[in-house]
């Protein structure tokens, strides 16, 4: 059953590509549209609308539409048709779903997603079919590293960035011995490696890496080991339910008073109500905080609250900036998505004031941004200071950034 669907969609992709190739060869594709009646721009939103990450997907979707709505609801003068597809945060279905957007729905842009595994599937399809892709969250390094491409953009972060920033903060604070802990999977390794890279550069040493299978949450033996090693700092990469459980267990094991626990912002973002007392005072690094002083942030948070009734968070900001990036890129080419080189060039050079601060992209199409040190107070991640200014991902293996 699955097999036949997969075959069918692959055939459709091939047919689509053949048709596109034939059209391009005959040279009848208009490269510039006249103003007037014209086809709508098709935006394919492939996001988690159900499951663990549903709230994140919803915020990205709502904020993206808000950004475009604020600018008149059009992109480069053309009306928009939204195509939404639930990716279920299931990497196994990633290729099929992305291919559906490209071949069946003929979208001009793919936008997605949260889960890094699904992002990898979308990156592959975007490269195979040369479809524009904007990633509003998933931080997997390869998307703007070894697999970077002119048609692939990211408006969020790479796993390397917040981890590197925290490594620097920990080393600057004079801490010498660290233990890193995470799930035994790609994002966990990318994050803990980046922490160790910066921490070592600052004169510290990671004494032990503790890993448990994803998404296991039996932390007890590992917490005992941390107590035995007594490092100066513990760096933890967990998100969602795992982050809630780890922070609470860390406090219940009595470690919080003795050894500072730090991590990337995901450790305490969207989880603070559940973590309660156990999270108070924790320091994390991220490209956003709940009380930034930018005027843009204030207006955005108010607008988002008014439009949705919910408080904005980092995911909403990333969705909003995805919208702004599209407005800017398509504005420059007056909505002509076929003028690919000009479009990519305009998006690449886009600079604007994001709720998170100044937004610019690296040559590998990943944001170059300030990372903030934040501290948990009540149910907010409060801004402390800038941890690293204008931090760019090393984009290891990306030919565009050479």
């Amino acid at each position: 059953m699955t097999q036949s669907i997969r075959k069918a969609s692959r055939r459709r992709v091939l047919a689509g590509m053949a048709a596109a190739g034939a059209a391009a060869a005959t040279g009848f594709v208009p490269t510039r549209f006249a103003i007037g009646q014209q086809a709508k721009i098709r935006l394919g939103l492939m996001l988690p609308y159900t499951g663990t990450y549903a709230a994140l997907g919803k915020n990205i979707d709502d904020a993206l539409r808000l950004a475009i709505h604020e600018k008149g609801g059009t992109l480069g003068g053309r009306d928009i048709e939204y195509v939404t597809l639930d990716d279920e945060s299931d990497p196994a279905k990633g290729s099929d779903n992305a291919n559906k957007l490209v071949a069946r729905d003929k979208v001009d842009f793919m936008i997605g997603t949260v889960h890094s595994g699904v992002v990898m599937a979308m990156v592959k399809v975007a490269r195979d079919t040369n479809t524009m892709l904007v990633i509003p969250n998933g931080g997997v390094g390869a998307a703007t590293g070894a697999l970077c491409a002119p048609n692939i953009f990211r408006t969020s972060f790479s796993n390397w960035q917040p981890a590197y920033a925290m490594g620097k903060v920990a080393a600057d604070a004079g801490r010498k011995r660290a233990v890193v802990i995470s799930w035994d999977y790609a994002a966990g390794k990318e994050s803990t490696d980046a922490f160790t890279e910066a921490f070592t550069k600052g004169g510290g040493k990671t004494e032990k890496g503790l890993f448990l299978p994803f998404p296991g949450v039996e932390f007890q033996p590992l917490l005992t080991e941390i107590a035995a090693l007594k490092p100066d700092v513990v760096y933890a990469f967990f998100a969602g339910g795992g982050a809630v459980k780890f922070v609470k267990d860390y406090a219940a094991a009595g470690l919080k008073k003795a050894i500072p626990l730090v991590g990337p912002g995901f450790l305490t973002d969207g989880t603070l109500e559940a973590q309660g007392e156990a999270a108070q005072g924790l320091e994390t690094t991220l490209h956003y905080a709940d009380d930034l002083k930018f005027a843009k942030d204030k207006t955005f948070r108010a607008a988002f609250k008014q439009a949705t009734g919910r408080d904005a968070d980092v995911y909403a900001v990333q969705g909003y900036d995805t919208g702004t990036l599209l407005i800017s890129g398509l504005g420059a080419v007056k909505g002509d998505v076929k003028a690919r080189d000009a479009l990519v060039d305009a998006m690449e050079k886009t600079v604007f004031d994001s709720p998170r601060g100044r937004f610019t992209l690296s040559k590998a199409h990943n944001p170059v941004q300030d990372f903030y040190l934040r501290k948990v107070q009540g149910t907010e991640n409060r801004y402390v200071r800038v941890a690293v200014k204008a931090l760019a991902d090393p984009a290891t293996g990306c030919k565009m950034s050479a």
Partner: protein
Amino acid sequence: MSDSLAFFLIQVLNGVQEGLLLFLVASGLTLIFGIMGVINLAHGSFYMLGAYLAYAFATLTGDLWTAILIAVPLAIILGLALEVVLIRPLYGRDHLYQVLLTYGVILVLEEIRSLLFGDDVHGVTVPAFLDFSVPLKDALTYPAYRLFLSAICLAIAGAIWWLIRYTRLGMAIRAGSTNREMVQSLGIDIAWVYRAVFALGVALAALAGMIAAPVASVFPGMGNDVLIVSFVVVVIGGIGSIKGAFLSALLVGLADTFGQIYLPQLSGMTIYVLMAAVLLWRPAGLFGHAGAG
């Protein structure tokens, strides 16, 4: 006491505690496997079911104990119903039929779980009177619920041992595992004994899921990991032996705990290495009957 010795003992405590919980799941599996001759792949799903029932009723009533009181009878009823409808036609058949059917039960239960509860990770709150920690070292305290958990597991292990060793039902179970026909001709309703064993097994797995819910969280697929480890416990202990399951559960718990600490790169493998070593030494497991089946 030196520091390193103290931490070693705390890790032993962690291992024993993991082992005791494993025993609760594996005891039902070894009974169903050893006495009824049924390979029950759905055993992990009953563990998951227990955890989700505990989550649902604890959220509803606000109390884990009330939730367990409601959920255990439900698990027993489910066990009885499954035995009558699905398992009974498979007695004496090839193991392949049992594997296929119980695998189907996994898929059905997993889908029902997804429909009813979604795919989110959920937490169950520790009951208020156990929500404190016991100080062990200057930097380490031990959550009281975990100690309580071990005490419950020990009590249940004792109860199972007493049931098998000293009651009429236990006698019938032991006799039935050796010679089904003979027991039947002595006037004991063996079909009823089997039904009781299956329901008991389901209830034990579900109960393990319920009391583990506050420390393990509640999430999709949680039963699958437990199932595999439980089979390892059953095989090491000797199929059908409660005593063997108890000892081997403790061994597996300790091996897993110390594997995570001393061999983090190979931590996923330690229990399988242990199993291979035991089987080389005693091919029928620690308390299995070689040759007798």
